[in-house]
């Protein structure tokens, strides 16, 4: 089947989509947006987190057809050209990126948190990121990154 959606502000079309295919597969394999990562395909790791109509979801659990006519924003759509989003920049500055596999999902989840709660408490950050696994950092630097982004007023 064919799926039409707006991705990062652009109208995109994917052809020959299998009916049981996930949005994640379409984004990565058909639209050339490898930012969202595929790790578990069962909603456990959060590395595929994208915005669907402004709501963060696991792209691996959205059927491609469910995105028809809807708006998707991936980690690639957060930066403004070469200028990183403040949340992205804070992850770099705080050393919250090691292998980087979990980073895109965490950045989207943190971006959403800060848009809703500009000055989150530690527990709020932990709860908001509870669906994102990182195997490298031990999470402390990730918490630092989110707090740094908050002080920089990252809620654009």
């Amino acid at each position, binding site marked *: 089947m064919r799926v039409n959606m707006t991705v990062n502000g652009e109208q995109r079309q994917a052809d020959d989509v299998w009916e049981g295919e*996930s949005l994640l597969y379409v984004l990565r394999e058909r639209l050339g947006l490898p930012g969202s990562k595929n790790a578990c*395909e069962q909603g456990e790791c959060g590395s595929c987190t994208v915005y669907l109509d402004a709501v963060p*979801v696991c792209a691996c659990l959205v059927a491609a057809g*469910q995105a028809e006519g809807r708006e998707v924003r991936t980690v690639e759509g957060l930066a403004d050209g070469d200028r990183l989003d403040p949340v992205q920049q804070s992850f770099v500055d705080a050393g919250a990126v090691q292998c980087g596999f979990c980073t895109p999902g965490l950045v989207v989840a943190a971006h959403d948190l800060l848009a809703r709660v500009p000055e989150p408490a530690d527990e709020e950050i932990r709860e908001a990121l509870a*669906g994102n696994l990182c195997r490298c950092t031990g999470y402390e630097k990730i918490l630092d990154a989110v707090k740094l982004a908050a002080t920089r007023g990252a809620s654009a």
Partner: protein
Amino acid sequence: MEFLRPATLAEALAVKAERPGAVPIAGGTDVMVELNFDHRRPEALLDLTGIAELGEWSTADGNVRLGAGVPYTRLIEQLGARLPGLAMAARTVGSPQIRNRGTVGGNLGAASPAGDTHPVLLATGGTVEVASVRGIRLIAADDFYLGVKRNALADDELITAVNLPDAKAPQQFSKIGTRNAMVIAVCSFGLALHPEQGRVGAAIGSAAPTPRRSRAAEDFLSGELTDAGLWESPAPLRDSVCRRFGELVAEGTEPIDDVRGSAAYRRHALSVLARRTLTWAWQEYRTGERSCA
């Protein structure tokens, strides 16, 4: 495989009548896992997310009608005061990403013994509204769960809503998991006080083939509260009453040993959950202040 996207409920019901093998998909948080792992290859997916009315809730005559497709996040944000028990359960589901997609309708469709909303629907006296081209049926939550992952839906039916009374008194939900977030319940417990009926609702999850009411415990506690006149002049509960309530809850279970916990642990944990949730709910009933969860 086909991907069907009805725009209205009537259309969806017509499709379901014609093609009972079409698998409904709402948030997809159960369905997509099965597809991604090739555990299921249905002839068609019936996407319900384009049907606006399934994503709405309304209130009338002291009841909430919660559309089957309302995601947990919206339930928590918008109905926390009217449906505190259900909102508490919803808050324990998965992660924000899962709660943003997952729905009560999907929890009912999957009918897992571990589904978090089930003990609350049982304890609060919820009814499941289902529809088909043949008409609408209201199924009491009590009659909805038939076996492990089996529910009372006919092949041509869709879940359209759940109906729950506005909470008139404290409700509680509590769940045991190996960590704070992202875990399936090892066991869970829902409690609702119904002072206007002089009755307590109590139900367990993950400790029998289906979610189920703890009837002996309900009857015992309802009797104690009524006999002692405690609904009208609520005094602290005697420890022996709380303990007996917990014991009766534990006796009403039929747990299994599995990777998440032993049967003995589940039984014990449920007696503790029952006692604790009762203490919290009663404290709130007496003082008007929520003491936990």
